[in-house]
């Protein structure tokens, strides 16, 4: 994961923007690890969902470079289990939105092949991965 931030945000700005966009109190996390434990994509991620929380708490802007935020499929498994009531799926969405709203898309529609996909997959993919 690249240590350099893709975009220019201070630690405080990152924290405030995440909390504002997600409506979640990320600082309530006490690192039980249940979010990672249940996440179906954890093994594909570079940062575990719990580490994403820690990166935000530490104001580490490079969290925005992580693969994790794009791999999260908003399945809400973590959300329904966090003992501190943090809706982690919303935190992930906030991180994606911080990038998407600055024009940092993660999906190039032109690169997709010929395969016929369900409509909801295309629309959903576009919604989550393109600004």
């Amino acid at each position: 994961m690249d240590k350099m931030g893709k975009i220019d945000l201070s630690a405080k700005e990152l924290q405030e923007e995440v909390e504002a966009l997600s409506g979640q109190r990320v600082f309530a996390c006490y690192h039980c690890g249940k979010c990672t434990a249940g996440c179906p994509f954890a093994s594909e991620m570079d940062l575990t969902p719990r580490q994403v929380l820690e990166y935000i708490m530490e104001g580490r802007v490079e969290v925005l470079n992580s693969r994790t935020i794009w791999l999260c499929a908003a399945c809400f498994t973590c959300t329904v289990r966090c003992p501190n009531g943090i809706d982690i799926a919303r935190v992930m969405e906030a991180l994606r939105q911080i990038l998407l709203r600055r024009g940092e898309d993660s999906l190039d529609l032109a690169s997709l092949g010929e395969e016929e996909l369900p409509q909801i997959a295309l629309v959903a993919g576009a919604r989550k991965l393109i600004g």
Partner: protein
Amino acid sequence: MRIAYYPGCSLKALAANFDRSARAAMGALGVELVELERWNCCGTVSSLTTDDLMRQLAPVRNLIRAQEAGERRLVTACAMCYNTLKRAALRVEAHPEELAKINAFLDEEPDYRGGVRVLHLLELLRDEVGFEAVAKRVVRPLEGLRVAPYYGCLLLRPRGVGLDDPENPSILEELVRALGAEPVDSPLKGQCCGSYHTVAHKEVVARRAHKILSEAASRGAEALISSCPLCSFNLDNRQRLIRELDGSFAPLPVLYFTELMALAFGLEEALSPEGHYVDPRPFLEERQLLRR
């Protein structure tokens, strides 16, 4: 019983077999699914930021359509549409100030006044038709058929939107039992299939599907049922890629729960090979559940 029905985009195209079997199976139970007029895409995947009111326009517009038709309830078969529509409906119900803004924005539409309940077919079966009535309608009990229910995310989560206990759901199991088949419990039945990653991260999805399917198969499942066109696509069509990654993988048919119902109700015509990557028919014929 007649009830307003929201098919959603996928059921009009790639998942036409879901639509067809849903109408046939529900019809057999005396429930006519009346397609909502002028419906539009639900918007898919609820947006999750605090400032996403614009994203609620699409689902609310559908609720307005239902209201226009004088309907208090709107039923869907697709789990994704169900989740998106229900979240929007609950949200505007809880936040009248947001509804006012949405109404003001949708100035070409009549105001949405709230009160339309979004239902999933499974809820209708459980709470109104009743699984006993389902069992009564069965003409060809699926005896001995070992079926793994697959819930995925959107029927269950988040709490309050889902239609069953997110940690220990049972509604599909009850349906399977009502049809005379045997439910196979897999601990991965509520785990995400990979969802829209199928667009850009096919292998991620294939690995997920591999896990979910193998776990079910290792517990003796002969088929899997789903309630979502996207889950079905990922679990069924991605088996091609799974085979490339793991030569020993044995294909597992994936059916919509409505197809399983149609089968037990003797409505074989509703069960077509289209819409399936792994054609379920040879296996069903072998088990003498389908005439050759």
